[in-house]
């Protein structure tokens, strides 16, 4: 087995070179450039190091969030380096050690870090092969690499450790390096390396860290964003049992104790004094209506050309909405900070150690090189939760006790009260159906607050605001990724179609990135509307979509679900008939129209008296490009489906005029086991040698919309405002 050389790859006819460029090189960007993250940190030893004993260390700026990233990246590196996965140590997001790859978000990790590591590994393997060829005195393509060593055809061999000893990896990566011709580790469902500790009580989370002489801390705040505690007599607090230190700077207040329970009890004492809301009251109207009354900036999303719609066409309009949603991490956010040598080290489950370091540097007025942020897993975050804020809280608390580590965890009510929410949203759709039953025009309008207030400065952190630092402004995220506009551009081939994002900067409640940003709402709206149009056109919903869809991979994903679900033979929806409801729903989207493709069909029953939905079965397909770990992909899609069912049926953050009223799980009930679907099956469509497509957020939109479509099929009534709660379903049936 010989690796193709660069000359082989670049030679041949244009069509061949093109297909090879897509397939055989470790370069997914076929313009002869390095992939983005590798271009930012082009030195090979930023990504891969091999010591004289042959130990391989791979570095990524991305973080394990429970999505299985560590395992997948090790697989990528092991495959391309031709070694066993066990021989690789992976170092994740650490501002002192790893490349800065921004935030671990947007389903970008495989696309960005995976592709960078794949390319870096192909470079390193080529250098090892060259070194071996020199040593064996033969051509590099006469050298085979496997099991951590180079082997010549005449029986010589040298381990990677021996070769690396004479190799300088502090060199720039070259683009378009060939991949190994056959993958042995990529494509395998390897068990995740992080799971054993999680099922055995090993140290798996930042919450589990116990450093010598560590203090426990709690931060004291009002009940939710926009409130603050009344002024306290801190001398009383200092004298409470077990309190070691009270840290107050301007509006920031933290309590430190040797014993965690003492810190908790002191916090309860402080909170009992009461709170105020110093600024404007919250609106009395439903938050999605209230924000539509605020000034909006109109940002075009897309414009597909086409002739004007025929005058005799059928016009269809509909309006859809969702409330504010919560990330709702099961473990409240936590960080450990240690102040020493005029600098601070913070162990954090932030999604972005680089941006957090910049923000802490601003908050603490320290040079960035005096701040080190090390990612340690926390409870799943699903976007911008309290992770960054609690890291700042811990750092400020630790500054008061140099040399002593401080572990600060938020309480449940603090996570519910202060985490930035996913914005409430409204979408209005208008389309014209021509006489041939096809869409002749399309208009998409979406209203939303911003979807990214991740910290970039001290004022981007709660503690920074308490110190009086200026709040960050929120700006719309440009397409093609988009924020509120994400997935507002339909994947369908629609003539005369436009979309506008009405970006509302002024946010009455704290909002930021929640898994998928605006995609869940836009996909819910578009995919519900496609069903409404299909009904108006007298077409089957899937056939109607396919009639407007040219993307072959999209069609494959849909067909897979149609076949596996048995769409043609599905039970007929009970519609407006009597008795309990039964119905099926279908939906499809390609996340951001540039990441994974995901189609979902599901079958439900609805108890008419209670309005309770039971999900009988869910069938999904996903095309994530080259599937590095198919079971990891399935796990993400399954999880996204179940989480999205919870969002769609159960969830809405409540407010009164002074604060959030969803302060715990009783006031914000999420899906529990009896409500989980009876079955969920996920079919992975593997595309070997195609670019990795981000998967983590691919199923939320289609799952919501498929459920909405099934409800319409079962009840004969379309429910367009989330959540599709029992009360709302009963209301719809009554009207």
């Amino acid at each position, binding site marked *: 087995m010989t690796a193709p050389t660069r000359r082989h790859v670049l030679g041949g006819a244009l069509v061949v070179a093109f297909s090879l460029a897509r397939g055989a090189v470790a370069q997914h960007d076929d313009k002869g450039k390095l992939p983005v993250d590798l271009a930012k940190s082009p030195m090979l030893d930023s990504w891969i190091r091999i010591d004289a004993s042959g130990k391989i260390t791979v570095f990524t700026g991305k973080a394990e969030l429970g999505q299985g990233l560590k395992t997948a990246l090790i697989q990528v590196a092991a495959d391309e380096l031709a070694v066993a996965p066990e021989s690789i140590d992976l170092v994740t997001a650490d501002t002192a050690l790893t490349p800065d790859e921004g935030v671990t978000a947007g389903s970008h990790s495989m696309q960005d870090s995976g592709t960078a590591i794949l390319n870096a590994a192909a470079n390193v393997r080529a250098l090892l092969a060259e070194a071996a060829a020199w040593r064996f005195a033969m051509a590099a393509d006469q050298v085979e690499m496997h099991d951590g060593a180079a082997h010549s055809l005449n029986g010589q061999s040298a381990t990677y450790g021996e070769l690396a000893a004479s190799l300088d990896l502090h060199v720039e990566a070259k683009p378009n390096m060939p991949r190994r011709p056959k993958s042995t580790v990529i494509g395998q469902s390897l068990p995740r390396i992080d799971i054993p500790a999680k099922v055995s009580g090993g140290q*798996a989370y930042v919450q589990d860290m116990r450093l010598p002489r560590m203090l426990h801390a709690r931060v004291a705040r009002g009940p939710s964003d926009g409130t603050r505690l009344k002024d306290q007599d801190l001398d009383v607090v200092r004298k409470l049992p077990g309190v070691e230190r009270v840290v107050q700077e301007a509006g920031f207040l933290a309590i430190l104790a040797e014993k965690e329970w003492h810190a908790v009890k002191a916090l309860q004492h402080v909170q009992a004094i009461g709170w105020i809301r110093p600024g404007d009251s919250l609106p009395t109207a439903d938050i999605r209506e209230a924000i539509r009354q605020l000034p909006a900036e109109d940002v075009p999303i897309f414009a597909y050309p086409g002739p004007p719609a025929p005058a005799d066409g059928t016009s269809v309009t509909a309006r859809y909405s969702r409330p504010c949603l919560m990330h709702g*991490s*099961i473990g409240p956010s936590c960080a450990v900070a240690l102040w020493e040598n005029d600098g601070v080290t913070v162990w954090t489950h932030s999604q972005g150690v680089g941006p957090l370091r910049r923000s802490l540097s601003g908050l603490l007025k320290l040079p960035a090189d005096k701040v080190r942020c090390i990612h340690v897993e*926390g409870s799943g975050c699903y976007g911008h939760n309290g992770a960054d804020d609690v890291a700042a809280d811990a750092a400020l608390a630790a500054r008061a006790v140099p040399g002593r580590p401080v572990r600060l965890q938020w309480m449940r009510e603090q996570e519910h009260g202060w985490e930035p929410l996913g914005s409430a949203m409204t979408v209005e759709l208008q389309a014209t159906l021509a006489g041939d039953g096809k869409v002749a025009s399309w208009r998409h309008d979406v209203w939303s607050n911003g979807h990214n207030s991740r910290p970039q400065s001290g004022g981007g952190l709660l503690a920074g605001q308490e110190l009086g630092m200026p709040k960050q402004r929120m700006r719309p995220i440009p397409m093609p990724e988009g924020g509120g506009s994400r997935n507002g551009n339909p994947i369908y081939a629609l003539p005369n179609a436009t979309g506008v994002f009405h970006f509302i900067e002024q946010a009455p409640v704290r909002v930021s990135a929640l898994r998928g940003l605006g995609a869940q709402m836009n996909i819910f709206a578009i995919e519900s509307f496609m069903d409404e149009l299909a009904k108006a056109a007298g077409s089957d919903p899937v056939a109607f979509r396919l009639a407007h869809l040219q993307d072959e991979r999209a069609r494959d994903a849909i067909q897979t679900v149609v076949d596996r679900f048995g769409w043609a033979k599905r039970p007929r929806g009970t519609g407006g008939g009597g008795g309990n409801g039964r119905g099926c729903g279908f939906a499809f989207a390609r996340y951001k129209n540039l990441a994974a493709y995901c189609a979902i069909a599901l079958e439900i029953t609805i108890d008419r008296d209670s309005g309770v939905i039971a999900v009988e079965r869910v069938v999904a397909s996903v095309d994530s490009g080259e599937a590095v770990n198919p079971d990891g992909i399935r796990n993400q899609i399954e999880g996204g489906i179940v989480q999205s069912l919870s969002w769609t049926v159960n969830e809405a953050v409540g407010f009164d005029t002074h604060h959030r009223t969803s302060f715990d799980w009783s006031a914000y009930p999420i899906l529990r086991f009896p409500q989980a679907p009876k079955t969920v099956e996920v079919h992975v469509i593997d595309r070997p040698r195609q670019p990795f497509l981000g998967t983590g957020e691919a199923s939320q939109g289609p799952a919501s919309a498929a459920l909405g479509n099934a409800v319409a099929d079962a009840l004969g009534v379309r429910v367009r405002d989330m959540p599709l709660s029992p009360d709302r379903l009963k209301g719809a049936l009554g009207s």
Partner: protein
Amino acid sequence: MITLTVNGKPHEVDADLDTPLLYVLRNDLALNGAKFGCGLGQCGACTVLVDGKPVFSCLVPLAALGRREVRTLEGLAADGKPAPVPAAFEAEQAAQCGYCIAGMIMRAQALLERNNRPTEAELRAHMAPNLCRCGTHMRILAAVRRAAVAMGGGVQP
């Protein structure tokens, strides 16, 4: 000082009598399994067994324990052999972030020790107090079904 029996061993603990068991397990005994999730008995991340019954350790003060036996995830493995419930969770890859999983395992353990042939509806009702936000429910259920078989029974449809 108060004496506490955890995973079959007595421990002397210096803690206020109103301290919830969870903080003692995590901080005084350095056991990672039980997690702080809500402190309100709403999520089950802190689930441990007390005399074989699942309890929210975030709500049980030390004073209320008396001589009852506490078992945590760390106490399931016997004689170095992996215990069937954690092994089943690993086999089914039943975790995403995994923060809820120790509590899930302990709640499932309580069920299967009492009844290794529950119905699917009993299984789901039994697991209802424990929340998972990653949506790993299908795998968690699959893991408990697998564990039921490994423990000589099986979940009935």
